[in-house]
């Protein structure tokens, strides 16, 4: 196990290098540049004179050769000093340190909600296949798949404001600062996200469990007189969880960095919003650092998933 984990972590290096080159090249070939954006402004209220654009570019070091800019940035990654945002002049790591905990908390809450809904729903549907319980669960899944999560989020806000005259408190606070306010702020987007996740996981759980329940060892277990909990929970669910674990890990990684619309709807300063704004502003240090971070996170999530497989299925051995 130790050798496997070490080997996977070592492979992280070429992965990160490859991603860094791709993202650096992409950011530099995209039309538009941060100097123009700084001058014209986020609302388009300014003007970008050519001499001013050159001035800003020089001040930001963007007139240096690309290879020098890349080397400078990678050196910063290694020394954990990736510099400052070209847009706001704030240190990138400091800003990331403020936003990442929110995104992590939201991902954990929504995934927990999803699992609490999806596992029982999928199991009930599989065990009671062809009954109203199965159909209800499938309708629940289809509705969740069809409705975009940001639309669900918007509906939640409208319901709250029109029925109760209330909206979640503005101005995000961390769970240590004010747990109740933090809960009020995050529970609603977590529910919206969790529902969408639960819809997919429930479907996967159902189909995976149905396959497992057809296996010989399950029939043998029933024939031996084992009860429901032994057959379904100990033999069935445990073996059906493998594809579900894969799905959950992918979704978790996506939510960690990809819920920009939900962050906008609920006014949450997460990593998704930070990345999208940085792309719009052509804020190279922020975009490049965040993309690298997400690449590393996905590699680590995959590693954790692979380790989880060995716990679920003793037959699986890590090479």
């Amino acid at each position, binding site marked *: 196990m130790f050798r496997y984990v070490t080997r996977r972590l070592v492979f992280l290096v070429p992965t990160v290098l490859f991603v860094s080159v791709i993202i650096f090249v992409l950011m530099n070939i*995209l*039309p*538009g*540049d941060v100097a*123009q*954006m*700084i*001058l*014209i*402004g*986020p*609302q*388009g*209220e*300014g*003007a*970008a*004179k050519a001499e*001013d654009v050159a*001035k*800003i570019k*020089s*001040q*930001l070091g963007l007139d240096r050769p690309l290879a020098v800019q890349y080397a400078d940035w990678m050196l910063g990654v290694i020394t954990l000093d990736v510099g400052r945002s070209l*847009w*706001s*002049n*704030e240190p990138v790591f400091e*800003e990331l340190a*403020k*936003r990442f905990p929110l995104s992590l908390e939201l991902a954990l809450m929504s995934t927990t909600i999803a699992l609490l809904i999806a596992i029982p729903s999928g199991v009930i549907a599989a065990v009671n296949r062809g009954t109203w319980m199965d159909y209800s669960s499938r309708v629940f899944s289809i509705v969740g798949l069809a409705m975009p999560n940001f639309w669900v989020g*918007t509906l939640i*806000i*409208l319901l*709250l*404001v*029109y029925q109760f*005259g*209330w*909206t979640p*408190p*503005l*101005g*995000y606070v961390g769970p240590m600062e004010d747990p109740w306010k933090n809960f009020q702020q995050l529970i609603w987007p977590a529910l919206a996200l969790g529902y969408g996740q639960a819809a997919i996981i429930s479907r996967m759980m159902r189909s995976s469990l149905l396959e497992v329940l057809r296996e010989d060892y399950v029939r043998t277990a029933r024939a031996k007189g084992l009860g429901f909990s032994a057959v379904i929970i100990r033999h069935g669910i445990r073996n059906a969880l493998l594809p579900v674990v894969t799905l959950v890990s992918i979704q978790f990684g996506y939510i960690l960095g990809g819920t920009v619309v939900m962050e*906008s*709807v*609920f*006014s*949450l*300063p*997460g990593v998704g*919003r*930070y990345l999208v*704004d940085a792309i*719009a*502003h*052509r804020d190279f240090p922020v975009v490049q650092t965040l993309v690298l971070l997400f690449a590393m996170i996905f590699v680590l999530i995959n590693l954790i998933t692979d380790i989880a497989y060995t716990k679920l299925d003793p037959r699986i051995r890590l090479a």
Partner: protein
Amino acid sequence: MRQRGTIRRRRFLGGVLLGGAGAVLAACGGGGTKDSSGGNGTSNGLTGVGTQAPQREPVRGGALTYSLGGDPPNFDVHSQSTYLVNTAMAPVYSLLVRFKAANVEEAPDGIEGDLAKSWEQSGDGLTYVFKLRDGVTFHDGKPFSSADVKASLERMMNPPKGVVSPRQDSLAVIDKIETPDSGTLGIVLKRPAPSLMPILAQGWMSIYSAQDIAGNFDFKLKANGTGPFKLKEYTRGNRLTLEANPAYFVTGKPFLSTITLFIQVDSGARVSAFQSGQTNFSLLFTETDIESLDAALGKKMTVERRNGYGFNSVNFGHNPPWTDERVRRALSLAIDRQESIDLLYEGKGFYGGYMPGGGGWALSQEELQRVPGYAPYSDKTMAEAKQLLQAAGVKQGHQATLLTRRGQNYENHSIFLKDQLAKVGIDARPQVLEDAAAYDAFNSRNYDLGPWGHSIALDDPDAVFAEFYLSESPRNYSGIGSPEVDALFNKQSQTLDLNERKKLVKEMQQKALPLYGKLIEAWSTRRWAWWNTVQGYTSHVGLYNYNVHEQTWVEKG
């Protein structure tokens, strides 16, 4: 301003120093009674939603909360052009002079001192001498003096390395700034400039500390002003909080204890937050939002509408046939401007030329309609448009691209224009790009048509024409100008007699509009809304020039 006989400049300066201050033009801070329903409130006869109670005694310690549609890029007011920075920093930094609270139209004769107690102008219009307030301190305790004003203006006139100053051109008329003592500031001009005072009264002319400027203070991340509020905390993407400055130089003000600006990029979220009372003030609502809030809140809120400073326009690239003046005029004739108002401004816009309609420099409706291409849309204008296109050799079905920024408002504008062009047989295709790519394409001038919304900061011909309509203006995206218009601009810019200057400005517009460098479709209406617990605030026509909230207060409960 007072007109005097012509005297030599040095004698004038010396006379002021020895003789003391001239007339005090206004008490700083304004205040007093004012009509809470506003002056030029509506362009379509609408009144505010709900009714405010008569002026009451201010309540101390309230909290004003509102939403911004995005983060301020940074806090350096001198280098920025976005309302996001201006709105956030206006309560933090004082100005030398400012528009009076009751001067909702921001007329040039309604300016009062802020850090200045009074000022005198020489008879030849070349020298202004300001007497400054005593006992003013910056938020960090440093005393304020004339050196701070000098340093701030010079920073905008000659920005340091790496800093761009959008107001540099408008201050280029200043020859030198003198500080004979800590309480006196002299501004000497290269030529007469009657626009100087309105330009100095703009919300962008924040006065920084000279020591901060010299000491490489990070104006992007920190703020140290003399305003009624101090920067308390800011979390990007989350909120910005200002707290009352206990050492503010106007005794008894501000009334508010805090101003909190929440960063909310989603318009629906802003409406919901206001409806639920999470925010009690807004300057970002559309008419549809107001209707929705009216249904929910009714008389609990107040709405003020002003003829706004935003306008929709069409810019032309360097591709034929759009370089042909006949083709541009044809487009102007083909656009149904009333339909533009109905569709794009929800029926709440107004006609105008290059200077905002209803303002002191605008052409009257009759004068505007006499400009070729600006007559109200009719079958006659449509027929003329088609004739012009035929004469210019533009065939039926000619294809043109519409360079469009991504975003609902811009895309709607583009679709509207497509429809208008189809009436004259032009097949226009929106090319939707995200902001950075759109700005890049726009600046390169390599496009056919650029439907673009703009806004101005000040209803002043120097400010507006210098930015948009001269041959070398930075936002003259079509690159179409005329030496005649440029010459008229220079002439009116130095004309001290107001009536004479207005005639020149009218003539300048009448010569510039038919060049069709920028086709004006319509001007917008802007809306402010607040819960009736918010008192003491009056909106101005300009978005950037009256955001200080020195007189605003919030009732408890």
